[in-house]
């Protein structure tokens, strides 16, 4: 927890510094976007992990944050973007980008909750309880948190898509199509779960694969 908090402070300092450099929300390159998503994962963990009674969410999300930041570091090492202050800051663009990336944070944590569910389910089924077993949150809380995180992610994605329509420079068709695809996939998963009650195992697998798909669309955007 303390290490996560320390990391969060450094992330925040980095993003603040880049924000000063660009004079806008620091999401102007792949590296910055990955750091912003990592930052939003940590912020979601701090705000929601405790509220959803999910101990160890930090332990499971830390490797993802580490991976994203390592890739970001490589990207910066190869090609650190020069300051790109815009002539005029478009608030709707800032809103679109930041809410969309926060949504990725929520989807990332939903995927982490899915991994935790599969891990705990496997240990319960195999009746082989390792040390982590005792520290994991109950199965029911994991499923509840996973659903709530998808809902939060969907709300944020919707806000991101809506704000895109008010941007001075309209987004490209492919950008809109990919954002819409991510929204649609998660909305479908949620709708099927609400109306047909997806089995928790299926829901967890959906959350993991949907997030991988969302990451792919992010790299395409």
């Amino acid at each position: 927890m303390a290490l996560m908090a320390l990391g969060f402070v450094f992330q925040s300092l980095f993003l603040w510094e880049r924000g000063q450099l660009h004079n806008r929300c620091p999401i102007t390159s792949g590296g910055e976007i990955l750091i912003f998503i990592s930052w939003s994962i940590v912020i979601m963990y701090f705000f929601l992990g405790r509220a959803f009674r999910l101990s160890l969410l930090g332990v499971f999300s830390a490797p993802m944050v580490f991976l994203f930041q390592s890739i970001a570091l490589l990207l910066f090492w190869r090609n650190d973007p020069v300051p790109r202050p815009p002539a005029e800051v478009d608030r709707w663009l800032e809103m679109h980008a930041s809410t969309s990336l926060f949504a990725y944070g929520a989807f990332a944590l939903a995927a982490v909750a899915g991994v935790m569910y599969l891990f705990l389910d496997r240990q319960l089924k195999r009746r082989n309880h390792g040390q982590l077993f005792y520290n994991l949150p109950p199965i029911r809380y994991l499923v509840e948190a996973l659903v709530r995180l998808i809902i939060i992610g969907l709300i944020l994605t919707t806000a991101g898509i809506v704000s895109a329509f008010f941007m001075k420079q309209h987004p490209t068709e492919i950008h809109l199509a990919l954002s819409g695809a991510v929204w649609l996939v998660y909305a479908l998963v949620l709708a099927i779960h609400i109306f047909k009650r997806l089995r928790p195992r299926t829901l967890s697998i959906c959350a993991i694969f949907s997030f991988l798909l969302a990451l792919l669309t992010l790299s395409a955007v």
Partner: protein
Amino acid sequence: VSIFCIGVNHKTAPVEIRERLAFVEEKIPDDLHRICQIDTVVEAVVLSTCNRVEVYGASDSPPLALNDLNDFLIHHFKIESEQVEFYKFQSEAAAHHLFEVASGLDSMVLGETEIFGQVKKAYAAALNSGATSRRMNKLFQQSFSIGKLVRSNTRIQQGATSVGAAAVDLAEKIFGQLQGCQVMLVGAGDMSRSTAQSLLSRGASEMIVTNRSYHKALELAEDLGGRAVHFDDWEEALHEADIIISSTSAPGIVIDAAMIREAMRKRRGHSLFLIDIAVPRDIADQVGDVDNAYLYNIDQLQILADEGLSCRERQIAICRKVIHDHIEKRGIQALAPPREQPRPKDPPEESSTSSGDDALGPFVPSPGNANQDP
């Protein structure tokens, strides 16, 4: 002035002796008064639980106080001296013993947490009765710090140590808090009764009991505050249960995978925990393969309990090191010499009595006595 402890516990005295030595909770203040009237005893705390009866105290001469208390206990409880042998600790050994008791290391169920509350309650009773002063206050406050330290820095509480506790732990790992969970008992055996009682004590809300003999089911349902279901109808209620405990004496399978698949379909994604404590088994092995259904039989629960116990036993050395390190760092506060009071510039003439707590002398039942060093 030093500290001492005299008593018996589950390791040194059988229950027949412990029950004769048990202090009656309501009478503890009077008993403390009597103990503190013994010339050699200046402070006292009585810790009386099902597994131990102990008196902690402070005295100018612990060996004499221990002899006096030995006689007091024998006379007070009207027990023959040959029937009981009290353990007696003085000074550091007495403090070490209390620290281990508060940490759950001396408990029958190793690492259990109830003892911590019982030590707190015993100390509060003595404090409110004015039977404690500096030594006991320091000793018990330090035991609470150490008890918390041990529990938060080791795995002494981890894992279950009995079949019932293992079942409850697993139920909590699946459902979280058990409030609102429905439990179905298939068969009305003693083992299923005790497991159900453990689940009820953790908040499970409703019991459905079914048995071939409806009369027995009704009886158990009444005991547990649940409802009885005829054995011909129980399958219809299967999907309502979150936890199923099966313990019939049927020679074959009572619950098969098809029944559970059907129940899971109706449960709309909610988990199901099945506990099979029957021999021969009531629940088919294939039930464990059904998605979101978790099946444990008596042997698997016993293995978990054994693992839990051995894990706790492995923690004893670590716990003792935590206690040792704490004492190395802080010392035993109850044995530290009292701090010198700063001498007032113009002492009033009547303040000629010593300000040291050690000079309090025998017990004087006044509230002020209890609050000198909380």
